């Protein structure tokens, strides 16, 4: 067996090191992408937990409230006649002015911590004096440093009192200082509670709930982390699925490599069978070849994946930050477990891909071994059956796409996508056969003998051609479908912004933005700006991160009456006039589409927040955040959450006033606050920049899948040159120049590119429909209008096509260099 494996498998692989290397690299890239996305997801999704959970210790319960828990609650719980221990915290963000890094700012009771020595917390009582912060080691600051930090919209100089041993990037302040900096005097964000073990946690929970005022809630500690993780599930799930595409493309190429091996070694297999080799030995030999590819690819994939994870974590982190929650990428952790899984993925995918050709090898009868051409010929005449199977799979895909989500996951959509890819793969032989029939005369007339020979050769090697086209088609289709989805989304957002962003200027605290950070402006700023002669109208908007039904969401208040004349917002459900009339006066809200879909809320429903119950008057289109918004009128909000500070302001300039001079006037009036003022157009540009950054990871994944496919084409063309070398030699005998031989190979590459980009475009459009209307809708709840990003698509397709052509250059050079005398006479 070992000798069979060596002679039949290993030796041929060694004889074609480049092709072997390309196949291993294809598997490696597929594995690497999956690993990188997994590692990056862990790092990006895990980081918000690690930073906000700094010094929480191992508490049992936590008390929270929208807008903060009144400080009096701390005393109320502390005076309960039970041996419970409590710690109050403030949790927000500060921006280091020197680096513009936004890091968690945590306010804790330094004295209490010092007394109880919790989690290496800073214990310097002197901290209570002056503006002194403690920095984690990860911030690379030194005790005694003076740094400028921005908290809310104010920048101030603070002293670093010391550095505490934590790798994350966190600033810690005494709670009194934190309250002052955050303008939350009399409030804390969280009260952590440690309970004795003499009764169940649920009993403690209800006992504490009994002493809480309206608006405050108690829950097991870590609920927020779990909520965030739940919220990120759909995002991570979709990203993971997207990362499998490169692996699927790699699987096609393994299938092709093993198929080529089988076809090429058919005579040897026949001889071995004639000499008594069992079918099982042949099967095992080829499966072992696949396992070697899988193992080598898996190993290399681990190394590549680790490197790629560094880039991916930045991209994934940016998306998490924009759409979900503040995130600081944690270090990428490559564990023995993830290494093992990566190698296992490589070997499993390779074995599964190789199963069919290996079984075919095992079924070779000794007498059949000599008839090489017959196998391909049989494959060619069966395309009708493939077409029928493709039609059945496409019908099943259409049915699957109608299925409801399962546990919030669009499993029907994924099944539809897989079925469509399989249908395309089965239809490709018919496509190539049809192209051969229809295009050959045309190619001969327009391009001469070379493309005609190329077309005939592709049609004759139908199985090989079909697999290659299927691989590149899958990669191209992914590019097209994601391109259309992102392009449609982008266009939808642009149109939405036209309706949504009606003000002339927008103002918010300076610093980087995130979906769950809402720093506030000085409360009197809006009034000061409203007095400016350049300004006609000021709309104050306040947002709070909240938890609704165990999921993070955003509660916000705006001034309905002021902005109603500008047509905001565009409603998906509900009567606009009714919304404008009732929203300012009743306990009513409107909710964003992602919120409505996530929580199955309809117009007329009531939603219950910790401080009251509200009727849903409408559902509006919103693409700002996937967390989901609940919007109420500012007056209603102030009734329950009386903090008048705004998170941002929208300003309308008086008619006839120059926008630049209005902006300068606003900036002058806001002097003393560190705010960012955006004219309407630049806010839109900024929003689109964030949008593009959000989807950068998908482009990166597409690129890898296309690279894998093109590498496969290069490898396959190399194999083709080797297999058909006597044909190229013969062409030289019949009068072909080296250039003509080269052109035959390049024509094959061009035709493979043509079929793949053609089929990929058709499949891609079908997949984009599933992405836009099924997977996206069920995962994220956004309605996306279908648009054709024609220029981007044509650009992408051109890149794929040119890359395919270029992949033929080296094989073409090899073919042109063949010695015709040697290759023709070697038979």
């Amino acid at each position, binding site marked *: 067996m070992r000798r069979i494996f060596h002679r039949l498998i290993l030796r041929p692989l060694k004889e074609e090191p480049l092709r072997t290397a390309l196949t291993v690299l294809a598997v490696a890239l597929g594995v690497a992408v999956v690993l990188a996305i997994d590692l990056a997801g862990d790092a990006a999704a895990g980081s918000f937990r690690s930073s906000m959970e700094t010094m929480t210790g191992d508490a049992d319960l936590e008390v929270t409230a929208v807008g903060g828990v009144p400080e009096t609650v701390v005393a109320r719980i502390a005076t309960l006649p039970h041996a419970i221990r409590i710690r109050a915290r403030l949790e927000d963000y500060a921006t280091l002015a020197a680096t513009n890094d936004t890091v968690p700012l945590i306010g804790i009771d330094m004295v209490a911590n010092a007394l109880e020595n919790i989690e290496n917390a800073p214990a310097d009582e002197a901290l209570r004096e002056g503006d002194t912060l403690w920095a984690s080691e990860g911030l690379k600051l030194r005790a005694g440093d003076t740094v400028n930090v921005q908290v809310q919209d104010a920048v101030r100089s603070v002293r670093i009192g010391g550095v505490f041993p934590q790798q994350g990037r966190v600033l810690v302040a005494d709670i009194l200082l934190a309250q002052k900096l955050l303008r939350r005097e009399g409030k804390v964000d969280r009260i952590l509670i440690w309970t004795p073990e003499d009764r169940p946690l649920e009993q403690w929970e209800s006992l504490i709930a009994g002493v809480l005022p309206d608006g405050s809630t108690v829950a097991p500690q870590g609920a927020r982390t779990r909520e965030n993780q739940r919220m990120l599930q759909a995002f991570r799930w979709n990203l993971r699925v997207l990362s499998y595409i490169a692996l699927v493309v790699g699987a096609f190429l393994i299938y092709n490599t093993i198929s080529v091996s089988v076809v090429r070694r058919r005579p040897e297999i026949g001889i071995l069978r004639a000499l008594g080799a069992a079918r099982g030995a042949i099967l095992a030999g080829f499966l072992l070849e696949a396992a070697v590819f899988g193992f080598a690819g898996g190993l290399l994939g681990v190394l590549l994946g680790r490197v790629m994870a560094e880039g991916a974590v930045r991209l994934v982190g940016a998306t998490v930050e924009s759409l979900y929650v503040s995130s600081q990428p944690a270090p990428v952790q490559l564990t023995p477990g993830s290494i093992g899984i990566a190698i296992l993925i490589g070997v499993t995918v390779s074995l599964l891909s190789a199963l069919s050709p290996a079984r075919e090898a095992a079924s070779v009868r000794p007498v059949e071994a000599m008839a090489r*051409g*017959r196998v391909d010929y049989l494959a060619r005449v069966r395309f009708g059956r493939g077409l029928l199977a493709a039609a059945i799979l496409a019908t099943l895909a259409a049915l699957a796409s109608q299925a409801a989500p399962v546990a919030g996951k669009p499993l029907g959509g994924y099944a539809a996508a897989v079925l469509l890819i399989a249908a395309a793969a089965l239809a490709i032989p018919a496509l190539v056969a049809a192209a051969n029939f229809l295009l050959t005369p045309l190619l001969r007339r327009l391009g001469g003998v070379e493309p005609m020979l190329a077309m005939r050769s592709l049609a004759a090697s139908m199985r090989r051609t079909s697999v290659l086209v299927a691989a590149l088609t899958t990669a191209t289709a992914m590019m097209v479908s994601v391109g259309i989805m992102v392009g449609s989304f982008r266009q939808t957002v642009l149109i939405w912004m036209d309706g949504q962003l009606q003000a002339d200027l927008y103002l918010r605290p300076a610093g980087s933005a995130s979906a769950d950070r809402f720093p506030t402006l000085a409360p009197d700023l809006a009034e000061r700006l409203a007095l400016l002669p350049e300004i006609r109208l000021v709309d104050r908007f306040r947002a709070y991160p909240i938890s609704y039904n165990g999921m993070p969401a955003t509660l916000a208040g705006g001034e309905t009456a002021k902005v109603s004349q500008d047509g905001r917002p565009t409603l998906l459900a509900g009567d606009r006039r009714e919304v404008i009339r009732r929203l300012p006066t009743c306990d009513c809200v409107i909710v964003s589409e992602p919120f409505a879909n996530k929580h199955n809320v309809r117009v007329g429903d009531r939603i219950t927040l910790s401080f009251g119950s509200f009727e849903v008057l409408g559902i509006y289109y919103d693409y700002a955040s996937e967390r989901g918004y609940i919007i109420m009128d500012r007056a209603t909000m102030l009734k329950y959450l009386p903090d008048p500070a705004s998170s941002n302001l929208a300003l309308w300039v008086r008619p006839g006033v120059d926008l630049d001079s209005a902006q300068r006037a606003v900036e002058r009036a806001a002097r003393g606050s560190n705010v960012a003022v955006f004219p309407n157009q630049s806010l839109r540009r900024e929003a689109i920049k964030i949008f593009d950054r959000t989807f950068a990871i998908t482009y990166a994944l597409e690129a890898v899948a296309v690279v894998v496919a093109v590498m496969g084409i290069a490898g396959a063309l190399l194999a083709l040159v080797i297999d058909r070398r006597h044909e190229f030699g013969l062409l030289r005998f019949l009068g072909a120049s*080296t250039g003509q031989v080269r052109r035959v190979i390049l024509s094959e590459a061009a035709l493979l590119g043509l079929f793949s980009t053609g089929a990929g475009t058709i499949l891609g459009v079908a997949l984009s429909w599933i992405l836009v209307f099924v997977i996206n809708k069920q995962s994220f709840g956004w309605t996306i209008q279908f648009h054709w990003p024609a220029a981007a698509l044509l650009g992408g397709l051109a890149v794929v096509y040119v890359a395919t052509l270029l992949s033929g250059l080296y094989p073409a050079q090899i073919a042109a260099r063949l010695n015709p005398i040697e290759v023709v006479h070697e038979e």
Partner: protein
Amino acid sequence: MQHSTEDAHPSNGLPILRFDNVSKIYQTDGDPVVALNRVSLDASGGEFIALMGRSGCGKSTLLNLAGAMDVPTDGTVFLDGSVTSQLDDSGLTSLRRSSVGFVFQSFQLFQNLSAVENVEIPLLLSGGGDARSRAAARLARVEMAGLEDRLPHQLSGGQMQRVAIARALVHSPKMVLADEPTGNLDSTTGDIVIQLLRGIASEGVLVMMATHSLESTGLCDRVIRMRDGRIES
């Protein structure tokens, strides 16, 4: 078989091929191997010449040099007025296109092309017009009419060799080089192929055939015996 007068080649009777003291030395694992050793010969249009000798005596090397597939290490090969060693790769290609047709022992047909498509390849490579009808006409002349659209695996060995001969002649070369053309055929079919080649020579084309078989040389004008890279007689 009918041969029309329009096929009669203008070079009939004139020298087409001349070997002047030609040697060919190959390097095998660094050691020189003399494949042809100071060979001289003249061959004219209309001649049917047999090259005989054991395997490795230099027959194939001589055919390759004659067919402008290779150039000599020493000496001069004149082919249709050109000195092959003075030509670059594209010059040799042009010379092959215009002057040489090849027939092989194992037919060497493109398996994915039909009979007529195989035959028209030389015309298409040289950019010649009307390739399909000329190829069909040439096939008809080797008694393959009606089988134009068959793929090689649908033809018998004799039929495949006829297609190969039609292909070698389709561009009206001055010389046809046949390397063991009957080696894969039974004796009856082999005889038919030899008669075909004889007919081609009668049209004014120089036909040079390498063979092991003495019976195949019955219709030849001349038999050149080779041994160890030299012409014996």
